[in-house]
């Protein structure tokens, strides 16, 4: 006990020495010094009606309704909107002081909450000089550690500053890269636009040709087609039919394969379910489900259908000269039939007359067709090879054009898409980072997907697909290594509609970003069932701000 008295005595002496230059009572920060200057009386800071003898300052009894008479003790800590209301301690308490001021000589001065004062704990984090435990309750001693902690802080701060500068540089690089990528996209757009223009011209030309040919075809007199032409027509029909069937087969096998995958996935889910369900819950429904699954699994027969599969693959191959049916053989006619020769009568006429006759004939025929007197040749399904070639040629170009247009649209959309400020995430898109955390390895793919993979086995589980940018208000620590979200508004990437949780929603991830030198997942938390939060550092969100080593103020609520 004597020791404590000595310490008290010493501190009295030291404070009286200090009093000569800065007459501040214990716990008062310099910005509040003016309220404590008078030696004759003290006025409660926010209640000027209350005047006290200066001996009441720091006498360990709370007199002022704003706590300002006890800057250096915990006597006014009950004045708080978080404490049970009591008469005299008004509900709308506004405290005059931000906390207990620690001078922290050799380090950064700061405030700690008054409720840390004389509670027997050395709160070096905010009070490296140990001055919060001036009374030594229960024998606690808090030697001044500011030199050591200050030095360490400065060392780390230097690293932080360095990292911050590096991060900004990285950010600039990212922005540059993004701009480069953007320029690339713009170039692509330009190229595509040119191509499209060319293709449009080509398409128009081909369309014209095709239409002309078709028109001609329609103008042909119905011919009782000879033997050869009948086969040609049949071949045309058969080819079309075979093509349809083949396409149907391919589509059905595709669907079958997809379903097989689904069944496999379901079986995996169910066998995991059987392993992991909690028999304690005695849920009859669950028990029944497990039983049925066991029966199902027991009855499952593994059949070998590789032969059948081979056949299907064989059938699904497109026809060509070497495989399947060589349609070309059937479609082209070796010799002209008699009727065709008659039709070629025109060819004997002088060209001018021929044109005129042909025109008239064709018009006449078209008139007949349009009036329902003649059957329409083109619709009869026996389109001639020439017309269909023209049509195909047009179609090919038109399809190509469509593709280009859609690519162009995509590129334009991409150009208009939100890649964050300065387009910076364009540079990160589709790259991924990983983090080992406890049982899981987590993966974040920028603007694409998040996933987790258990180290205890099992596949990767989707935790969401990127949907949009958002922001969130955070209030977190920043570690000595500079990692951490800090306080304020932070950019977030929202990943939604991940794999569905048993007993829960679809997984989703909120990726909260803060500035860091390199892309790194700091922390992953499951905030509620299957809703995750990833705290992620990336240079992409760094901003040029004067990093101020301001005193760490702790709000006293």
């Amino acid at each position, binding site marked *: 006990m004597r020791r404590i008295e000595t310490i008290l005595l010493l501190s009295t002496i030291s404070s009286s020495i200090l009093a000569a230059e800065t007459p501040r009572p214990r716990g008062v920060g310099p910005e509040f010094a003016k309220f404590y200057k008078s030696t004759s009386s003290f006025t409660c800071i926010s209640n000027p009606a209350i005047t006290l003898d200066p001996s009441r300052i720091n006498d360990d*009894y709370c007199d002022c309704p704003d706590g300002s008479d006890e800057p250096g003790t915990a006597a006014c800590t009950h004045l708080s909107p978080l404490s049970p209301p009591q008469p005299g301690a008004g509900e709308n308490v506004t405290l005059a002081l931000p906390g207990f001021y620690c001078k922290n000589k050799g380090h950064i001065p700061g405030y700690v909450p008054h409720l840390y004062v004389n509670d*027997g704990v050395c709160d070096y984090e905010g009070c490296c000089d140990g001055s919060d435990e001036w009374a030594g309750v229960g024998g606690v001693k808090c030697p001044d550690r500011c030199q050591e902690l200050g030095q360490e802080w400065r060392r780390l701060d230097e690293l932080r500053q360095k990292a911050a500068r590096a991060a900004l540089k990285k950010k600039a690089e990212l922005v540059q890269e993004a701009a480069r990528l953007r320029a690339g996209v713009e170039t692509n757009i330009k190229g595509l636009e040119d191509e499209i223009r060319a293709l449009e011209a080509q398409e128009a030309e081909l369309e014209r040709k095709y239409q002309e040919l078709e028109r001609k075809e329609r103008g042909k007199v119905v011919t009782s087609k000879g033997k050869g032409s009948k086969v040609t027509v049949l071949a045309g029909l058969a080819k079309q039919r075979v093509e349809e069937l083949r396409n149907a087969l391919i589509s059905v096998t595709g669907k079958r394969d997809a379903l097989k995958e689904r069944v496999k996935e379901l079986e995996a889910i169910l066998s995991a379910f059987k392993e992991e369900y909690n028999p304690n819950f005695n849920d009859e429904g669950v028990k029944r489900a497990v039983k049925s699954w066991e029966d199902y699994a027991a009855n499952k027969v593994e059949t070998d259908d590789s032969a059948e599969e081979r056949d299907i693959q064989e059938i699904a191959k497109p026809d060509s000269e070497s495989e399947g049916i060589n349609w070309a053989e059937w479609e082209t006619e070796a010799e002209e039939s008699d009727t065709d020769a008659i039709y070629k009568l025109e060819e004997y006429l002088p060209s001018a007359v021929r044109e005129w006759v042909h025109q008239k004939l064709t018009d006449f025929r078209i008139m007949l067709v349009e009036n329902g007197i003649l059957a329409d040749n083109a619709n009869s399904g026996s389109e001639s090879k020439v017309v269909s070639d023209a049509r195909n040629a047009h179609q090919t170009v038109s399809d190509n054009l469509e593709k280009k247009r859609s690519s162009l649209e995509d590129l334009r959309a991409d150009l208009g898409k939100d890649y964050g400020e300065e387009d910076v995430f364009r540079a990160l898109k589709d790259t991924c980072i990983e983090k080992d955390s*406890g049982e899981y390895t987590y993966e974040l793919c920028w603007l694409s997907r998040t996933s987790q993979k258990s180290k205890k086995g099992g596949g990767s589980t989707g935790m969401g697909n990127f949907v949009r940018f958002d922001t969130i208000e955070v209030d977190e620590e920043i570690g000595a290594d500079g990692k951490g979200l800090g306080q304020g508004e932070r950019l977030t990437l929202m990943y939604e509609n991940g794999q569905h949780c048993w007993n829960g929603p679809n997984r989703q991830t909120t990726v909260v970003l803060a500035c860091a030198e390199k892309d790194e997942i700091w922390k992953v938390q499951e905030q509620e069932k299957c809703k995750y939060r990833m705290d992620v550092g990336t240079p992409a969100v760094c901003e040029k701000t004067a990093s101020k080593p301001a005193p760490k103020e702790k709000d006293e609520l």
Partner: protein
Amino acid sequence: MRLSLLPSAQWTACFVLLSVLCSLFTPAVSVKYENFKTCDQSGFCKRNRAYADRAGQLGSSFESPYQIAPESLSWKNGQLQGVILKTIDAAGETVRLPLTISFLASGSARVVIDEEKRQKGEIELRHNSIARKERYNEAESWAIVGGLDLSTTAKEERDATKSIVKYGPDGQFEAVVTFAPFGIDFKRGDATHVKLNDRGLLNMEHWRPKVEKAEPKEGEETPVQVQQGEDESTWWDESFGGATDSKPRGPESVALDITFPGYDHVYGIPEHAGPLSLKETRGGSGHHTDPYRLYNADVFEYIMDSPMTLYGAIPFMQAHKKDSTVGVFWLNAAETWIDIIKEKESHNPLSLGIGSKIDTKTHWISESGLIDVFVFLGPTPKDVTKAYGELTGYSQLPQEFAIAYHQCRWNYITDEDVKDVDRKMTKYQIPYDVIWLDIEYTDDRKYFTWDPLTFPDPIGMLKQLDQSDRKLVAIIDPHIKKKDGYHVVDEMTKKDLAVHNKEGKPYEGWCWPGSSYWVDCFNPAAISWWKTLFPYSAFKGSAENLFIWNDMNEPSVFNGPETTMPKDNLHHGNWEHRDVHNLNGLTFHNATYQALLSRKKGELRRPFILTRSFYAGSQRLGAMWTGDNQANWDHLAAAFPMILNNGIAGFPFAGADVGGFFGNPEKDLLTRWYQAGAFYPFFRGHAHIDTRRREPYLAGEPYTGIITRALRLRYSLLPSWYTAFHEASVDGTPIIRPHYFEYPSDEQGFAIDDQFFIGSTGLLAHPVVTQGADSVEIYIPDDELYYDYFDYTPYSGQGKHTMSAPLDKIPLLMQGGHIFPRKDRPRRSSGLMKFDPYTLVIVLGKDGTAKGELYVDDGDSFEYEQGAYIHRVFQYSNDILESKNIGTKGKLTDKYLKSMKDVVVERIIIVGAPASWTGKSSLKGGEELEYHAAEGGKAAWATVKKPGVKIGEDWKIDFSVSHDEV
């Protein structure tokens, strides 16, 4: 009528749709009835109920076949011994049932009935069973710790038909033992208060061999069953839910009727979810149809207002009527059912004109073991709980942190997660003392290990917690994973310390870790071994601020009958599980308690262990909670009756999971639950693994602020709570007390269980437990003055008063005439408040006086047993406030006082201060006084600032008004 005018089809459709919608939103959770037996499915319960029905039907022509052989009786040193003969057939053949009636120095009486043939081992067991032949006679060695000294003043008189023993304080009690049929009437004064075998339901199913009857041959027609002799259908092997109980000893149940003439309320026999005042159990409007059941079980998603069994069992009942309380303690650890009926008083000249006109008649039925019943004659509730506590021990004086707030969740998933929650609580300035780890911290559910991936640094985590004097509680359960190379299971099986199956081989069942064995803590060798697992050097990653949670100790066995062990399993000494089931949880809790006492040589600190399963006596070992409740208003409302019932049954360190274990509470429910939880003796927030995170700081405003105020209220009142815990630890008085306990004459209060008093502080709380309520009807039992705790609004007048209670308000009254201590400085944990100054609140009574107590010690060690504590009474009368020592000086008193010498009273608040103090600014001794006159409907009050008195010293403060001042 009006409805019929409407197009009904449309309305029906609407209604159907509505009800479908409703059913979608109704939580589809509810107990699985089919997993647990009804009385009808429990052979012995069914038999004894049938026996009672037959007796009832026969009325006066029914004759109990139990008679004392008068010549067998002998009296010695306060004990009456003899033999009851049970006539078992028409030929008059009898079996001998030795009887011992002990009259104890404490004034309690004990009646024990055994079976001679089984005592002597002259029976044959079926199925070549190796089980013990005696009736289980060791329950006493677990449940009873004292109070068995025999009376030296009791006197017996006997005639041909009865024996009369006068005993108790000043010989006021009397037991009239009637020989034929056997029965005992217990009297206090002239009135009979407890009657044994009054209805003739005494039944001890004596051992009998199974007579194999020829099975009807195949193809032959089954002969029509001729009812010959007794119905044997439930005597032998019994099946339930696919499991068969081999019952090697056949039928062996014991039963007795106990009648409380003139008593219309009975309380106790926890644990059940239902009102404090027990209901009738034989049907009728508002009554239960099944008896109250005691068979400790892991009941998944239990239901409200039900006599169904839960996790713990205390077969102790109090009966209460105006100005009189009596009690019985049925010391039997087997499955037990208790039927209760209340009947209009039969013609009874002895109780004419006294009390009510209702008799409460109970019927106690146990599957095996002895009849061993203690009778307590009161006359006050306090006398009864005290007498019961003398036998089974008083509530542990806990670690002080254990009565502060506990933050739990299944599960904090990593050590970083724990540290993060810890930092956040600090940051939001929300006090808490303990953070908890459920099963997921272990490596693959192997207790005494840590998951290397998620808890790589338990010591670092413990160190961070210790910086704010906070603790960690980790779960350790009795099922031990069967896994090669797991040192715990290897040692346990090598030493043969697991519970055995009926063949005498280690019993294997299914629990959290999968296939498991269960440590048999009935075995002293198992306790010794269990102790070796806990030293800091053995349980790697544990430290001084780690404490233990024992869960699943009913025991819970996922694939066992009724989610527990087969009854024919064998424990140490080859006692059947059937005999000891309800004690199982206590023995495991006890082993852990012993283990925590021996973690480090030379370290002797109070263990803290939470248990889910319990029995009479568990109160000596730690705290209990009401198990896996649900996040709904019904469960919030059910918690207080359950905690009150536990309290009057001697186990007051009780609480319910704040927020509700299953499901996600709405924010108003969570907030109200914290306001209620601040009054649970054991105050812990807990949540199921599938629920959303709900640490208080996540709720957002205004909820977080309101919750924080509730928590800080608890913390500021900790000195009063600790004083109440101390009181419970020395005389068994509950920590939160129901009305009948404090006002045994006020009949209007006998069934009240939604408000209660906190210790002896005069604080009367009525927390809101209903959705959307903005006021409560608070009942005031007397004409004393009461004041709102938070704003000093006065209330007075016996009867109900409406108290406004918006979401941010807890209805809490201070009763005049009390003084209670507080510590108003909010800190991060209770440990950091140790040296803070006190605030004394004096609530002046009508007569201008007030009184209260403070007990304080180091809150951690056993040094209080050597006087290291401060125990003071504060008295205000004749304008003098005085602090007097009421402790007993011991070896360590001075040392402790020295350590506390700087702890002072910083403030004295006088509520209801006399108007004569108007204008006064100081007291005679110079102390500064601040007087606030009554205004705005609030009472006058005054504050003495810095009175400069020390908490550990005697002092007086003079408040009298001197003439010159007025």
